[in-house]
């Protein structure tokens, strides 16, 4: 950045391996975090509900998929299905055991999704590339069909929807119709921060390096002693865990109630877009991608009105589709490695600025 790291010496291994080795970065990050937790004090209900909460929930899902696709190199189109597993098991757990703390419910829902992910990850041992991508679609369609068909999952609700029951954490209502957007935002933020930190450390450690080795050349990885079976299945289950928690958060913290339609193939593509646009194999990229995908449609919906163009609804929708598709192609052409790469380049440039040599 514009500031220099000059004069900051690393005397210990710990300081060398820090996530933010430069003091200024640490302070900025801390400031950002504090600011993020203070946002509900100033933000309006609309901003929290329509922008910030979906951004956080989708970031979590994108993180999960990024671990699998970006780090372990297994292309998956089953994200929506795994998120559905998380959402439905959270619903079942929360209604069957009302005394269970909601955070525990989220974690258990993630575990359930991880188990399912493990199961659907098995074909990845034999099937690779696009064949695998299409095979993961099987999980997407099968899981959504299952939740739609078996009434037990929705507690025999005639409408087929699941609704987040009201639950409290430390006496504050966090889910259900009475929870305020501010509280739900803070819970989502805390969840995402914790999981992002875990993900960052996972990918820096032995596990992440094994994943990357498998991604870059699986046969070579196998020859140097990485077990493909374990590594790939671990990637699938960790990724599904994240997606499961994200699915639970989607219903409990964002929608309030949902049906299987919310978890269809479009959700899988949406999360995949976030990962690709943000940057494959980058934790920061997952956040940037989620922000992009959440903000662009809102911007596109509001832009024509803001400049005084009153378009018919149908035309508006078609134009939105066109611009969105065109924008994705454009971004891929300009920077195939995603927004995270752009950020990295600009950081590097700023570091030298104003003396480029």
């Amino acid at each position, binding site marked *: 950045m514009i500031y220099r790291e000059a004069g900051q010496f690393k005397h210990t291994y710990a300081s060398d391996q820090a996530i933010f080795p430069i003091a200024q970065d640490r302070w900025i990050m801390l400031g950002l975090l504090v600011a993020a937790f203070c946002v509900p004090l100033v933000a309006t209900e609309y901003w929290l509900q329509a922008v910030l909460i979906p951004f956080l929930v989708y970031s979590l899902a994108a993180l999960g998929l990024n671990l699998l*696709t970006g780090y372990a190199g297994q*292309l998956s189109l089953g994200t929506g299905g795994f998120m559905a597993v998380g959402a439905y098991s959270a619903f079942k757990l929360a209604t069957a055991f009302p005394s269970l703390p909601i955070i525990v419910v989220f974690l258990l829902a993630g575990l359930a999704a991880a188990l399912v992910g493990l199961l659907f990850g098995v*074909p990845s041992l*034999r*099937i*690779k*590339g*696009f*064949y695998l*991508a*299409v*095979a993961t*679609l*099987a999980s997407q*369609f*099968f899981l*959504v*069909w299952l939740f*739609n*068909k078996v009434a037990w999952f929705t507690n025999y609700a005639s409408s087929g929807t699941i609704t987040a029951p009201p639950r409290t954490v430390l006496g504050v209502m966090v889910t259900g119709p009475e929870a305020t957007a501010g509280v739900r935002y803070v819970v989502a933020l805390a969840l995402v921060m914790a999981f992002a930190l875990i993900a960052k450390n996972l990918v820096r450690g032995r596990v992440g390096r094994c994943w990357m080795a498998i991604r870059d*050349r699986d*046969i*070579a990885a196998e*020859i140097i002693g990485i077990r493909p079976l374990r590594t790939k299945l671990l990637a699938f289950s960790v990724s599904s865990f994240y997606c499961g928690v994200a699915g639970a958060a989607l219903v409990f913290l964002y929608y309030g109630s949902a049906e299987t339609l919310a978890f269809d*193939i479009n959700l899988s*593509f949406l999360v*995949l*877009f976030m990962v*690709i646009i943000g940057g*494959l194999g980058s934790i920061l990229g997952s956040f940037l991608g989620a922000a992009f995908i959440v903000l662009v449609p809102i911007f596109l919906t509001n832009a024509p009105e803001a400049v005084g163009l009153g378009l018919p609804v*149908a*035309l508006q*929708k*078609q*134009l*939105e*589709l*066109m*611009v*969105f*598709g*065109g*924008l*994705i*192609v454009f971004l*891929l*052409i300009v920077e*195939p490695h995603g927004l995270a790469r752009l950020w990295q380049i600009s950081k590097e440039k700023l570091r030298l600025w104003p003396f480029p040599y």
Partner: protein
Amino acid sequence: MLEAVFLSPFKDMLGAPGFLVEVLIGGLAAGLMYSLVALGFVLIFKASGVFNFAQGVMVLFAALTLVGLMERGVPVVLGLLLTMVVMIALAFAIERVVLRPLVNQEYIILFMATIGLSFFLEGFGELLWGSNVKKLDVGIPDTSFMVRGVQVNKLEITAALTAAVLVTILAVFFQKTRIGRALRAVADDHEAALSIGIPLKTIWVVVWSVAGLVALVAGIMWGAKSGVQFSLSLIALKALPVLILGGFTSVPGAIVGGVIIGVGEKLGEVYWGPLVGGAIENWFAYVLALVFLLFRPQGLFGERIIERV
């Protein structure tokens, strides 16, 4: 329970052979319709290694264009020709705007680009021609007649014949013509083909044009069957299991895969579907394809995957 899964369906099949034949024919025809869509995928994947997710939307776009032209009073034949021109122009545009800047990128980037393309085309098609459901009538009757007590649908027969003719034409085109040979060379090895003077750009335009024309044929067939509307683009999702079953790189594979998926899907739906509450057609094909893949990871007719470090 075991009996209901393993015995009763077969008893039912043998008990009413006429109905079984009907189901089989229905499955066969449906399968060939899937093959028509899968063919477009195979062509593009073979020649450029791009997994073209936009194929389904191209089917929709072609059908929309044809219907839109006919609604404005253009005769069928002229409409067909004009739509062909539009699809070829589209191929040129895609090559210039999307493929050329993305050359040499990773496969997943190209895949995402085609998804972006599908969004764009969907919006564009509906912008041009409107998004309401349209009826496509090119003179193929959707009626049934009886052959020895078995119901046969004329439209399905037409689709089957069309698929057969199309595959024959494509086979001749690939084997005998100069461009066809160049296409196969590019499919084999991009760099080698480039080094002996085959122009990659031209080949890509040709292959996307051919895929566009195949999409037009598929669009006519599906449009005549179920009307031209947005859901037409979702048949791409139906064609994917066909694709992995037959192998991404094999034209005959697309046909055989389509038939297996079509017949398997119909049999599963009619005889096993009631056991689990029906509506299994969304995922049954995928599971079927997945089982095949576990034994042959490259699909039935795909090129053998040779991996080197």
